[in-house]
């Protein structure tokens, strides 16, 4: 193993690490990324076989505890009503995400100013806008310009089709006078930059065998590697080390054979997501940082935001065949996004239409909820639901609370013996009220669309996809972990670029904003290379 010192060591090859590596390749520095997972082979994704849905619920599960790959680490979620979802491999969570690609809104960066809660970000929408646009181009975003819920923006590719489900729900939103718009989706609806067009396989969330979905293993990484960035897989980092000068000087990791290695570096960048990053920081204990690296504030791991979801599905008399087409990406509504205190809560949520669900998912959800019985009634109940269901999820803005946090589990460890994360999370009263509102409004629009039955799960237990806030940005070193440029207040050559640094969570999927922020931080580093450690 060649562990010669590098200029820039990135830990994590997901959404943020890939974008950052690609941007920093401009500098011609020696850049290495360590990734605990592997390269994925699209030919082995579940949609290539008849057993695809079964594989999606097992080795391609969102839940690392269910998936149980050697490349995963377990998560103790027993103290949370929402279970953590992630993926460990080149591309990270983008391998399994639905490819929803909304940006944060201008108000999302000014929550304290607008609504008197949480904190404002030290960066704003206008500053990030060029990086949003660059990222949309790199990831290949489909959508439609002109959405009144956003400042004007260009969209590289035409939108995903409405399909029967989308058309029916769009008409219902119109009937109620509510906003809707085709989802911004990182899906190639036309051949784009070497990617083939989407052929409506359905389950984007178990990997895209077609290669139409913009996961970073096929967008940023090939270009970054071509430009000289080195990516080392099956390299699981145990801790960041510090020198006598208090600067980070490298990382201890385990290679694919479980052998301990040390990689020296001049600059260390964390991109392990809102759970993996605080886990690594808390595991990086030294005489100088007895509570974890860069944690003099005690804020590392705190303020965990998970985006509580409501899942609300309707049953329709006619066949909609929503199991085909991008499962999660269709249309969305941001009618209830901005704060209206008359609703009984602050901030808001996005409704994202779910076209439908596959046969096995329909059966398992129906059997679990009691909508489908064992016995003679199985066929009638299954036939009523399958291909006749459409609905939505509501993604709620989750406000930061110090007691919602990631700690190290005293018992649970990964395959290399590294302490695993434990999640401590409760729903706030604001979130509970917002969930009730979202379920009621979703039911209203589904009924308007002609649904004969409506079934809701709120909060949706499995939906811990968005992990944010556990090493937040801020100007006050006593209340935040990194500054406005992603640099740790305590360690001048340690940067964090993933969702951990979010100050607030918005009410939309965070990938677009995570990547825009990573590009913004990279831009700042490139502009200040000579004075990076001042």
């Amino acid at each position: 193993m060649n562990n010669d010192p590098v200029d820039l060591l990135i830990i994590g090859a997901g959404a943020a690490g890939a974008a950052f590596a690609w941007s920093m390749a401009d500098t011609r520095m020696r850049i290495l990324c360590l990734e605990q997972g592997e390269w994925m082979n699209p030919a082995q994704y579940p949609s290539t076989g008849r057993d695809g849905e079964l594989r999606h619920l097992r080795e391609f599960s969102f839940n690392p505890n269910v998936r149980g790959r050697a490349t995963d680490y377990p998560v103790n979620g027993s103290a949370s009503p929402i279970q953590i979802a992630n993926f460990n491999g080149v591309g990270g969570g983008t391998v399994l995400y639905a490819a929803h690609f909304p940006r944060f809104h201008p108000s999302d960066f000014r929550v304290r100013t607008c609504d008197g809660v949480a904190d404002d970000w030290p960066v704003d929408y206008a500053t990030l806008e060029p990086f949003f646009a660059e990222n949309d181009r790199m990831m290949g975003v489909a959508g439609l310009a002109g959405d009144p819920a956003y400042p004007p923006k260009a969209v590289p590719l035409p939108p995903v089709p409405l399909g029967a489900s989308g058309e029916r729900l769009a008409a219902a939103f119109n009937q109620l006078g509510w906003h809707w718009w085709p989802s911004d989706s990182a899906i190639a609806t036309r051949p784009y930059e070497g990617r083939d067009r989407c052929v409506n396989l359905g389950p984007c969330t178990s990997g895209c065998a077609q290669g139409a979905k913009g996961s970073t293993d096929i967008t940023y990484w090939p270009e970054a590697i071509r430009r000289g960035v080195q990516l080392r897989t099956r390299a699981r980092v145990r801790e960041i080390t510090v020198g006598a000068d208090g600067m980070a000087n490298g990382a201890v990791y385990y290679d694919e054979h479980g052998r301990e290695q040390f990689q020296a570096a001049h600059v260390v960048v964390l991109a392990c997501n809102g759970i993996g990053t605080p886990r690594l920081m808390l595991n990086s204990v030294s005489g100088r940082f007895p509570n974890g690296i860069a944690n003099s504030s005690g804020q590392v791991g705190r303020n965990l935001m998970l985006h509580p979801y409501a899942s609300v599905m309707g049953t329709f008399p006619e066949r909609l065949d929503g199991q085909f087409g991008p499962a999660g990406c269709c249309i969305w509504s941001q009618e209830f996004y901005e704060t209206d205190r008359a609703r009984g809560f602050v901030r808001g949520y996005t409704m994202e239409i779910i076209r439908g669900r596959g046969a096995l998912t329909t059966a398992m959800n129906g059997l679990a909820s009691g909508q489908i019985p064992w016995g003679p009634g199985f066929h009638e109940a299954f036939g009523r639901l399958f291909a006749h269901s459409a609905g939505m999820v509501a993604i709620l803005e989750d406000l930061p609370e110090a007691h919602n946090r990631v700690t190290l589990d005293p018992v649970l460890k990964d395959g290399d013996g590294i302490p695993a994360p434990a999640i401590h999370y409760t729903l706030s009263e604001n979130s509970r009220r917002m969930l009730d509102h979202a379920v009621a409004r979703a039911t209203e629009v589904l009924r308007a669309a002609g649904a004969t039955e409506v079934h809701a799960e709120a909060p949706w237990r499995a939906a811990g996809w968005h992990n944010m806030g556990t090493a937040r940005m801020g100007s006050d070193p006593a209340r935040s972990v990194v500054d406005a440029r992603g640099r740790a207040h305590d360690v001048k050559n340690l940067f964090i670029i993933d969702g951990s640094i979010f100050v607030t969570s918005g009410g939309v999927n965070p990938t677009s904003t995570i990547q825009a922020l990573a590009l913004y931080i990279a831009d700042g580093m490139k502009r200040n290379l000579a004075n990076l450690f001042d």
Partner: protein
Amino acid sequence: MSDTSAAPAAPAPPPFTAAERAILDALMDLMIPASPDGRMPSAQSLALYAQTAGLTAAEAATFRGGLADLDARAQAARGAGFAALDPAAAQAIVAALRAERSAFLHAFTLHTAARYLAHDAVMPLIGLEPRASWPRGHAVAEGDWSLIEVVRARPRLYRAV
């Protein structure tokens, strides 16, 4: 780039014994019997567990333990093996397992539903072609994009800050 996303296929666990198959058959008949009109076949009639391919070693062990437990419960309650019970008595035992959140029952339900719904004989009956989604994919209608004009005409929704 190396192909490392999946380990080589592991050999299938040993096949179920005749006694285990009998319990599985009874359980499948409880879960998915033929439809009253005879249009949909029963799960049992499709020999879904004729071989154990598709089960991991751990899942096969869960199945074997669960089947033995079912039989033991039947013997204790009715003095007969599970496969010999009448449907009401068998359902009562299954209900107890469900209340206990049995890992075996979950695994059995998942694999039985998966094998049934992806079976050549069943997919056409639920409106699906008997094939994988990729590479041919599926057609999805664009839909009526004129619906968007009323939304496009709305005033700005986002807050200026």
